[in-house]
């Protein structure tokens, strides 16, 4: 069975669940004791769901890891271990490790084995009630401790998960190289279902047949065994976990079960994936051959180690995923006389609602899921589009009917109004449809904001600062592409705010501020843009220091006087940092310029508002989408080009007196108090300008933190354009960011401000060289 098509949703979901787990942990860390039990329960379910899913897909290391985690969480849930702040920290680390492991499985890379080992050791110590010692390296723990992990807890560790799952960790070989490959063989879980006899199959025959393939070790899965008084002798309540130590192809193993595949739950997976039955387990339950467990069958009270929740034994392959998703069921609980899947699937939806309802036997021939990116769309958005399409169809048929009437009866002026009405309806439908289709790509900014509680938590600890994070407007939506690209700049700004902006406690006290600093993340829509604010109530930008630093670096002349805004802008200069000491977090002076550049590349802008002693707020302005842009149409010669409206500062008529050359090279224009460089678009594009143009225009554009005057022949209107890449069928062209199709059907090229700047500079240099 091909499960690969479910891999992408699985990973997606795991990361979502980890996010949730992280949120719960952070809430616990924040001293929020209300609903402690619910939160621990919720965290437990995350670990459990990931374990189940990982098992389904055969990610045995994740299964093992989450299993241990689950054991600890379970102990916390029943109160035998405390959820201390230390524990929260450890659990947060496990979130990281799990992310790493999942990402490694997804990308085919290797997870950090040291971290896995280290956290596992801590988990084990906590389970054993030891104080947590940070192990320097893989500690040589006595393996004997492990067996007694959780005495008296039937559903816990030792059951399906063999004890030796731990041993590779404890013993010297790193987790990575746990004996996964050898010896060859298969781990088979066989649950025939309660009516197997009624259907004419004999499970023992099957087991004997399996034994002919090679040596087998078998363990009885008796977790569904009802109390003695309710046993129906005609029914089968047992399942078997079998380790077949034989190098035979999977097909051959499957063939053994061919007749019962439909009624029974059978999973077959390579031996050694962390699930092989431990041979040293209780001899009364383990048999060396199928014949022996016949005697085990009527045992009404099985020995505790063999008790497992139904979910703990189901393994990849054809296993019902509902069963995998089901939470651990205390095995001591009398299970109704039904086969394993029934209770499991009944409880799964209620307790693990986030788990994908993966069909048990999905279409096997489905193609593998690719990483080409998918998007989850709310059904309401889809419904809205369907409604709009319906309206569009009505409008279309209305207009079609109209044209038939005109054909039949001829056109009369009185009909013009109807035509106009129809067209305006069409226009409205089209616009609404466009907006709604765009909404499909829209995701809430919370996707980007979600990582910050953790980041702030970790950094505040690291920096020794008390910081409260306040997030608002997290439901503000923006285009997925923009969202993906804004993540890193946001992280950078937040780190910067925490490191440089907010003061240490003593400094805050001295300034008469509350000990706890506040970091605010806010997002809202404003006229086709999304505004994201990152603000703190820290020390604010020290203008004198920034200015001094800028003078020292030669960015600003010694006597030059700058406005406050200009001084604030200086922190975006490449290589600029006033941090007295470079920290891990920020201060190397790379970054702020990169942040600004990234935001510009998205067609957005970045502003600073800062008041000394009161705090700094960065304001990011971004277009809601990258596929539609507000633009200004400009004309050079015969050609119409498109300028992003966002980059235009102002447009003005050129006064020839104000245009001059500096040292015979660069053309500059005197714009009020400043001189700005001038780029003649026709020159850098090698196209003819209008031969006679009495009134050339200068469009002042801003990008890369500088202003440039773009000399053009004429300005046309402003309009929204749909951006079409030139690279789809052609290639990237310097100075152009794409193209669009105008109302008359012709293609117009969209100017790339950054590219134009570079071309302008090159042109100047060449002129300089020639002069």
């Amino acid at each position, binding site marked *: 069975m091909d499960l690969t098509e479910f891999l992408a949703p699985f990973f997606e979901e795991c990361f979502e669940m980890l996010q949730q787990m992280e949120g719960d942990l952070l809430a616990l860390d924040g001293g929020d004791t209300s609903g402690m039990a619910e939160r621990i329960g919720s965290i437990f379910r995350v670990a459990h769901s990931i374990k189940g899913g990982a098992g389904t897909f055969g990610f045995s290391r994740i299964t093992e890891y989450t299993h241990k985690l689950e054991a600890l969480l379970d102990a916390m849930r029943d109160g035998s271990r405390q959820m201390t702040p230390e524990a929260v920290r450890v659990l947060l680390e496990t979130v990281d490790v799990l992310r790493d492991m999942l990402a490694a499985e997804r990308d085919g890379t290797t997870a950090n084995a040291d971290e896995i080992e280290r956290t596992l050791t801590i988990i084990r110590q906590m389970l054993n009630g030891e104080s947590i010692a940070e192990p320097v390296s893989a500690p040589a723990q006595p393996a004997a401790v492990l067996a007694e992990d959780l005495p008296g807890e039937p559903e816990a560790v030792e059951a399906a998960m063999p004890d030796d799952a731990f041993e590779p960790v404890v013993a010297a070989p790193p987790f990575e190289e746990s004996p996964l490959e050898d010896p060859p063989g298969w781990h088979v879980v066989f649950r025939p279902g309660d009516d197997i006899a009624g259907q004419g199959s004999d499970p023992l025959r099957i087991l004997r047949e399996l034994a002919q393939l090679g040596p087998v070790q078998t363990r009885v899965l008796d977790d569904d065994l009802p109390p003695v008084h309710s046993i129906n002798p005609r029914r089968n309540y047992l399942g078997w976990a079998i380790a077949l130590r034989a190098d035979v192809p999977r097909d051959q193993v499957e063939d053994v079960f061919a007749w019962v595949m439909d009624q029974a739950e059978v999973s077959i997976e390579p031996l050694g994936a962390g699930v092989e039955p431990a041979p040293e387990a209780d001899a009364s339950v383990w048999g060396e051959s199928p014949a022996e467990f016949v005697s085990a069958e009527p045992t009404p009270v099985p020995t505790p180690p063999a008790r497992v929740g139904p979910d703990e034994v189901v393994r990849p392959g054809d296993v019902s995923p509902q069963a995998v998703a089901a939470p651990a069921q205390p095995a001591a609980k009398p299970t109704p006389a039904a086969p394993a899947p029934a209770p499991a699937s009944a409880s799964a939806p209620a307790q693990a609602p986030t788990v994908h309802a993966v069909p048990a036997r999905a279409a096997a021939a489905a193609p593998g899921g690719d990483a080409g990116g998918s998007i989850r769309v709310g059904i309401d958005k889809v419904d809205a589009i369907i409604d709009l399409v319906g309206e569009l169809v009505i409008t279309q048929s209305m207009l079609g009917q109209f044209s038939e009437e005109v054909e039949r009866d001829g056109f009369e002026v009185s009909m013009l109004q109807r035509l106009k009405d129809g067209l305006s309806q069409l226009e409205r439908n089209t616009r609404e449809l466009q907006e709604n289709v765009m909404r499909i790509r829209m995701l809430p900014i919370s996707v980007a904001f979600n990582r910050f509680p953790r980041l702030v938590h970790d950094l505040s600890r690291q920096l020794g600062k008390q910081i409260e994070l306040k997030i608002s407007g997290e439901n503000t939506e923006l285009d997925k592409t923009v969202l993906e690209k804004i993540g890193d700049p946001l992280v950078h700004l937040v780190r910067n705010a925490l490191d440089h902006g907010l003061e240490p406690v003593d400094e805050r006290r001295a300034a008469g501020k509350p000990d706890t600093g506040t970091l605010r993340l806010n997002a809202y829509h404003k006229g086709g843009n999304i505004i994201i604010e990152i603000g703190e109530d820290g020390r604010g930008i020290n203008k004198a220091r920034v200015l001094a630093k800028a003078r020292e670096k030669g960015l600003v002349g010694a006597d030059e006087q700058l406005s406050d805004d200009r001084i604030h802008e200086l922190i975006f200069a490449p290589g600029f940092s006033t941090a007295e000491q470079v920290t891990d977090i920020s201060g190397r002076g790379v970054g702020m310029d990169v942040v600004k550049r990234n935001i510009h590349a998205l067609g957005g802008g970045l502003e600073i508002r800062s008041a000394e002693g009161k705090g700094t707020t960065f304001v990011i302005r971004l277009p809601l989408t990258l596929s539609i842009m507000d633009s200004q149409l400009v004309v050079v010669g015969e050609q119409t080009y498109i300028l992003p409206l966002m980059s235009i500062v102002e447009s003005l008529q050129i006064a020839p007196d104000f245009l001059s050359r500096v040292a015979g090279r660069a053309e500059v224009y005197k714009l009020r108090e400043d001189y700005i460089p001038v780029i003649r678009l026709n020159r*850098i594009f*090698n196209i003819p300008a209008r031969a006679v143009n009495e009134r050339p225009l200068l469009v002042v554009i801003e990008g890369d933190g500088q202003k440039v005057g773009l000399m053009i022949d004429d300005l046309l209107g402003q309009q929204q354009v749909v951006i079409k890449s030139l690279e789809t069928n052609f290639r990237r062209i310097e100075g152009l960011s794409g193209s669009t199709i105008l109302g008359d059907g012709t293609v117009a090229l969209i100017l790339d401000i950054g590219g134009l700047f570079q071309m302008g500079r090159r042109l100047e240099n060449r002129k300089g060289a020639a002069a």
Partner: protein
Amino acid sequence: MNALASNAKPRVAPTHSAGDETVGPIEQFLSFWLDGQEYALDILRVQEIREWAPVTPIPNTVSYVRGVMNLRGAVVPVIDLRLRLCVPEQAYTPQTVVIVIHVRGDDRRRIMGVVVDAVAEVYDLAPGRITPPPEVSAQGLENHVRGLVSVDERMLTILDFDRMLTAEAMAVTEGAAS
């Protein structure tokens, strides 16, 4: 796609014996005129044929890229084949057409328009009849030519647009910002 790919080899392989003529499926080729010469291309690569209409020139590109046109919402580059093959330029006539073709390369398929003097005919040809281009050929044409075939005493040059319109060839710039 796959079928085409697997066919590609025998089609290009040089064949000299007459017996080979019957080998392989019959392929169809669209022929067109360019400066009095008849050229052809695999008809499966042809998406459509359009009248010449003015295009939007792209600054700082090689001269044979006339510009880009709007093909029902797709922005498609238009190549002047005369300029590409270094044939003397000529004013466009009402017969001038743009053949919209699929070009493969760089792991993707691009759509391009190719300006030719006029379309001519559709030929059914057995791949075995196509002979490889002569080794010595003016203007490095062998890179653009898949093979030659004679039809009714005339020579037909079968062009290989995948090799002619590679990304590198398109990336040539002429006199950028000078």
